[in-house]
């Protein structure tokens, strides 16, 4: 079960998570000589500061509702939200609907955090010095982080 807790307020935009994400994915795919793909999380300017934008793996993901091609699904086993590259048509609907800015198009397809399903624990959290990203020991913290997505979109979060 994915237990990544996100607290963007603590993020100072150092970018180590992005590098860890790239390295992690390069090695997890099995090659000896890694090919560095683009990271699956982003440090973006927000007003005067920089902030992390990463998938919360929401319980009821709005990106999946927005997807017109049935390409975004919840993987029940890992508790993650995934994009099926074969089905994605690169229409930007999910990009427009995710309040966390957690999706963008890479090479014409929607790209987002895959929750590091294939390795043990997300590397981005391991390398975060500020606590903006944490692997939560208790799953309630992670669930709270996810639930925020739902609250925001029913328009009742404050």
């Amino acid at each position: 079960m994915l237990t990544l807790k996100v607290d963007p307020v603590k993020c100072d935009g150092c970018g180590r998570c992005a590098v860890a994400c790239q390295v992690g994915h390069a090695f997890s795919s099995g090659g000896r000589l890694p090919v560095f793909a683009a990271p699956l999380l982003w440090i973006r300017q927000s007003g005067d500061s920089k902030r992390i934008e990463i998938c919360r793996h929401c319980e009821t993901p709005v990106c999946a509702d927005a997807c017109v091609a049935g390409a975004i699904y919840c993987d029940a086993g890992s508790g993650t939200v995934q994009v099926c590259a074969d089905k994605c048509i690169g229409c930007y609907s999910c990009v427009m609907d995710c309040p966390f800015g957690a999706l963008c198009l890479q090479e014409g397809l929607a790209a987002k955090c895959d929750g590091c399903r294939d390795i043990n624990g997300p590397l981005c959290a391991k390398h975060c010095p500020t606590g903006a990203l944490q692997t939560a020991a208790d799953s309630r913290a992670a669930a709270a982080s996810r639930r925020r997505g739902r609250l925001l979109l029913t328009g009742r979060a404050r």
Partner: protein
Amino acid sequence: MSKYLIIGYSTAGLSAVRALTEYEPRASITVISAERHLPYSRVLLTHFIAGKVQRRDLDLVVPDFSQQAGITLLQGVRAVHIDPGEKRVMLDNGERLSYRALLLSTGSSPIFPEGLTPSDPCVAGLRSLEDCEKIMRHAVPGAAVAVIGGGPVGVKLACALREAGVSVHMLVSSPHLLSQVADEEAAGMVRKRMEACGINILTGVDVSGLEPDSDGAATLMLNDGTELACSLAVFCKGVRPNTEPLQVLQTRGGGIRVDKFMRSVFEDIYAAGDVAETFEITRRQYCTAAIWPHAVRQGRLAGLNMAGCEAPYGGSLFRNALEVFGLPFISIGIHPVSSCGNWDMEICRDGLVYRKLIYRENSLVGAQLVGRVEEAGALQAEIRRCAVQDLDE
């Protein structure tokens, strides 16, 4: 008698079925579908025309979904009349069905100018797979097709036809493309990209008539006195909600207005998707906000509320995303058509990038992005936050 009756089996209807079966696993559900196909993604039809997806990619469910979900599906039949007093629905095959709770998810249909109908061999709309097949029969490389209407569906269709090798003429009655969702500058960037890819775009013109030729093609008469030869004219000039089954009781011409629990004014009749009029949070009025994510969400909430779980809808928010030959365009919320009122704009432009934020009384109510759109999601959330705050005040 089925406890739940759903009329229209597409995005909203399917979403309701999923919610109902999840919340009440052994519920008795009957679904009436005018179409003979299982639910498919209408939005992918232009991608199908462009040859980017296969027929099977359009399907939204696996073939035995009805059995899995335990629903009764009546395909190829239409509901023609609803009697809210008797709680009965009459079908076009003469059958009558009673219900405990009813959902209208009948979507919408393309609007055609007076005197032209899709039964004419040279005239089409784009809504169903049948429409799509008709267009594809004409969409052979080298053929000329006229796309009438410059909204998001017209733009998507013109691009798809061009990708299929067709020569495309776009006829737009407004002074610029996408006039409902974009300003002149943003629309101009989209237009430039389409023209660079070989689409002929005429603005400020309308079709005044159509003359069939002897060889199966047609000549379109335009209101500026010119003529245009094409093998097919596809009308993408907006849609009208399919309210027919309730029409006798409907006084206004719009959709079926629902409250935040998706309930219409008729007892135990719910509506969701393109046919429903919901509260739009930036316009601050009830309207049909006919887009996919609304159909999904409203369908789900209608299902939950029909099953007795009080799940309120947070309101609709107009938005559109387009990809025009690699150029992304996103429009969210409202954009002022006149300068009256208290509007402020914040505009940034840089080559192929355009970003416009629209404020009303210092609240963010709209955004248009061209070229770079990563921040669209965050802006959308901010527009919702502002709208909710303003409503509470």
